[in-house]
């Protein structure tokens, strides 16, 4: 890889973001602990009745993961904008959309992947039947990058405003409704022994579209945010 080529730029940026995340490993654990605690609250609030918990397990895991991803999204571009790294990315010879895509990928690896790893544990705590667990993980693998991509666009749009945390939640959560419906629908179908591939395919289609469009939208929004 020659320095300055597109692949070298992507590799350098991915490596930078992963190194930064590794230097602050404590921050990676935070969304995981958050999801663990929220999922634990449900049996306390609803009572430890296995049939009831098994029925809501899929939905609870998805909503919990969604909220945990939302918490971690806020910082996606902020640090880069504040320390001037975003200016350096914008002036680099590579398309900004591609570089932003790399940042979203790094963010997904550091924040969503750990959540996917603990998801079977959460599902087990909530008595989700074992055969449905692989479907849950599969649905999360497709749904979490979709959430990251949708969230990234909104983070880029709110990058100019100071206290964007709550605004981000208000904007992102309605957009997540289809993702939650299809992901939880797949798990519910698997629990009842029905074919679950259709909702998963919808998630995949949404993801394919978001992978292409979201980085472009992000780049455009960041340009506007920096244009002040």
């Amino acid at each position, binding site marked *: 890889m020659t320095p300055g080529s597109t692949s070298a730029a992507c590799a350098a940026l991915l490596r930078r973001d992963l190194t930064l995340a590794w230097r602050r490993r404590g921050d990676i654990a935070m969304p995981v602990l958050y999801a663990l605690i929220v999922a634990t609250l449900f049996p306390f609030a609803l009572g430890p009745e296995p049939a009831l918990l098994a029925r809501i397990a899929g939905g609870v895991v998805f909503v919990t993961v969604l909220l945990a991803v939302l918490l971690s999204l806020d910082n996606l571009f902020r640090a880069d904008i504040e320390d001037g790294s975003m200016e350096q990315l914008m*002036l680099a*010879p590579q398309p900004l959309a591609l570089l932003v895509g790399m940042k979203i990928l790094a963010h997904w690896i550091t924040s969503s992947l750990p959540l996917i790893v603990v998801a079977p544990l959460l599902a087990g705590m909530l008595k989700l039947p074992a055969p449905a667990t692989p479907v849950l993980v599969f649905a999360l693998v497709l749904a979490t990058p979709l959430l990251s991509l949708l969230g990234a666009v909104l983070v880029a749009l709110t990058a100019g405003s100071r206290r964007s945390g709550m605004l981000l939640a208000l904007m992102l959560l309605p957009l997540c409704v289809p993702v939650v419906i299809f992901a939880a629908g797949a798990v519910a179908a698997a629990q009842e022994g029905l074919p679950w591939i259709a909702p998963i395919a919808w998630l995949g289609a949404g993801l394919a579209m978001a992978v292409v469009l979201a980085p472009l939208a992000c780049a455009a929004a960041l340009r506007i945010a920096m244009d002040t």
Partner: protein
Amino acid sequence: MDNSRHDRNNRRMTFAPEPAPLLEARALAFLRQDEPVFGPLDFALRAGEVALVEGDNGSGKTTLMRVLTGMLRPGEGEVRLDGAAFSLDTMAGAVVFLGHHLGLKLDLSARENLRVSVGLYGQREGTSADAALAEVGLAGFEDEPVRRLSAGQKKRAALARLLLLPARVWLLDEPYANLDREGIALVNRLLEGHAGRGGAALVTSHGAVSFAGGEPRRIRLHA
């Protein structure tokens, strides 16, 4: 407004067509809510030239720099780079910008920061990160997290980037801030080296700056 401007270079009699200036501004102006921030401004920077943008606080020096990088759209006029119209999409990478925010990651070492920049922008031939860091006086601090460096050392780490990247146009916004006497001499040395290699640089400063090698061109902004 200073209308005498810097036309002298354009009046030279030549038989061969002169190469296009590396960086050129034509009637460049920036408006914020219909209030002019600076301009209209005309200047041309040729290979081997360093120009100093002077102006008081609030006279639009930083805004001018951001317009020249393409991050801000000019209200009027145009920026040309190497004779072609300039925009972020077409010519990015030909310009390296050092602003108030240095673009360094505090949790990474100076060497790691440089590696990222080289990955993004490419590397000028015959340079190495360690040599660049030694040149700016950071030998021995290569692996120290930038967080632990002093403000002046951070600035020096950012200056090392200039040495490594292949860009021919340098836009330096207040490069002298936070630097000691030796650091100021270092910036001047870097600028002279860059001009000697056929690069061009635009430097802002609100204070008096003395170059060792002759007087630079001056572009005056008024508040």
